[in-house]
């Protein structure tokens, strides 16, 4: 699977560009590049449902982020202890990477998942549910309760944004009087 490694390196480069570029619009575009790299890797890894969803979500995210940053120019402040903080963060990340690497060594190797639970889905979906898209069947039949939670999370985010966008948070005395009239 050399292609997936190459794609990952491509995504990493795009991600580094996204966080290091000075111009905000360019960095948002770089995130888009990383996201489309991700879509292609999903296709390579045989997850077409996910590729479609990620593609569409990516576009929506990009539009929101681009519109948010399009008129904004930013000076980047570098505080006095820039070097110290960066070194501390780097050391922390290095420790995290080493621990993560050791943990990865004990996982089943790439390409050979255990699939203890999933055998059930592969057997049941066509036989009992009569659906042909297994991922859809898992999302909306076997684990539909998860999807309810996920729909609720979306709903909560939408209501939350509407709440945050209110022009006036608190009612003043005049507002109350107007209301009672």
């Amino acid at each position, binding site marked *: 699977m050399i292609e997936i490694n190459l794609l990952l390196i491509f995504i990493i480069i795009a991600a580094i560009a996204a966080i290091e570029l000075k111009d905000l619009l360019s960095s948002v575009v770089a995130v888009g590049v990383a996201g489309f790299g991700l879509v292609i890797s999903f296709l390579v890894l045989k997850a077409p449902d996910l590729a479609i969803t990620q593609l569409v979500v990516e576009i929506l995210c990009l539009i929101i982020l681009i519109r948010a940053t399009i008129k904004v120019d930013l000076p980047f402040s570098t505080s006095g202890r820039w070097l110290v903080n960066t070194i501390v963060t780097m050391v922390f990340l290095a420790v995290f990477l080493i*621990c*993560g690497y*050791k*943990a990865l*060594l*004990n*996982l*089943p190797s790439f390409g050979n*998942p*255990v*699939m*203890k*639970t*999933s055998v*059930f*889905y592969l057997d*049941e979906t066509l036989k009992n549910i009569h659906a042909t898209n297994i991922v859809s069947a*898992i999302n909306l*039949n*076997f*684990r*539909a*309760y*998860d999807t*309810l*939670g*996920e729909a*609720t*999370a979306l*709903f*909560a*985010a939408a*209501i*939350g*944004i*509407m*709440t*945050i966008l*209110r022009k*006036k*948070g*608190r*009612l003043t005395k005049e*507002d*109350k009087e107007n209301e009672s009239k």
Partner: protein
Amino acid sequence: MQFIPLLIILPLGAAFFISLAGKNKDTVCDIFSTVITFSLFALSLFFIFTAKTYPGTLVYKVGGGGLPGGIVLVLDGLSIFMLTIINFIAFIINIFSINYMNRFSAKYKFYTLFMLMVGGMNGVVITGDIFNLFVFYEVASIASYALVAFGTEKEELEASLKYTIIGVVGSLCILLAIAFLYAYTSSLNMADISLSLAQNNLNSVVIFISVLFIAGFGIKSAIVPFHAWLPDAHPAAPAPISAMLSGIFIKSLGIYTLCRIFYNVFGMSSGLSHLFMFLGALSIIAGGLLALGQSDIKRLLGYSSISQVGYIILGLGIGSPLAITGALFHLFNHSVFKSLLFLNAGAIEYATGTRNLEQLGGLRTKMPVTSASSLTAAMSISGIPPFAGFFSKLLIIAACIKSGYIGYGILAIIGAIFTISYLLKFQKYTFFGQLKEMNKNIREVPIFMKFSMVTLSLICIFGALAIMPKAAGYFLKPAQESLTRTIKYADLTTQVLYEK
């Protein structure tokens, strides 16, 4: 048994319905949400008695699927204990907000988010599936991020941003841990994971996953190295939400999940228990010290929450049945008196318009109900003997000494002294002393706010009865047993599942 999904259906349905039809109908929303929270409370009381007559664990198969593929809901002693606390406090806070939230615009959005938060917390507590736990954890978190910024002023937005970013990093840790856990055990059901982890030795994957879980859930429970969001988010939120966050949110999303994962799924090891004890003691001391220096009431109470959560973590770390009983009892007490104190702070702000201790004073004569209930809560939290708080702290300290951790016991006693001193400061500057000129013509708060404060202070006084052997048999004992019998959780759940 058939009623278990109602714990989710009711709050979520109420949330969707209020947002669909509740605009500009504040009174209808008030009544509707009060009825819903009350029926949730009644339902959880019903489960206490059902679980008593029904030996073992209540299990519900969502969609009828059963173990290999489906999601199961598991109600054991600990879940029912948490459910009762969550729904009781939510009911009281709902009554409080009928009057209090009139100061803000768009009340129906408040109720929608409130219901989503309650639904999310119920979902976290009753589920038996680790990914489902994450999903409902996110529902409750997203609702709380938005509720912290409900006032949409500068400080509130900033606090909410800080809280959201820290919270999202925590969620990322949890999701990564779940991905690793799935790759390692190829299962998502917690009982199943527990069984397959018990077959393997402790190795680097399990340690890495544990660290990620501690970081993720530790952020929500505000243990000291991860506490940065709490002192900002609690003061910024409206008072009912502060009470909600401090009273039940950090417990159901932080402490409950830590208990469930480390006691029932991974199993406690000695290293883990030392880590818990260390973090708990650190939280007690650091939270107490920082609380002493605050002049904003809610900020003081926020740091106090960190300190009191430290007691619970310390008790859980020791791990003997006595310590766990103490920790759970302290959890119950803390959710009662800390919500009460936050509601008091809200009442003071409602009446005087400020939370700064230096501008208050002498409110005892003007606001007798608030003053009396706040005094009750303060005495209970600082451990004056007849109140409930005394017994829980005593149990934890006694367990420390009994298990041979004298040092931690002394630290806990020092923490109790800190607690008394900052609460004395709060009481003295607020209710005693000279009445300030600007506060001459304030009035006591409206009836519903009074009602909820009085109810909570009655619980503070009579809460100590919960530890009596007969009452504890219904409430505390099953919760404690579901933690101490480590492997029993998995066995009971799978046994019930495969029976039918």
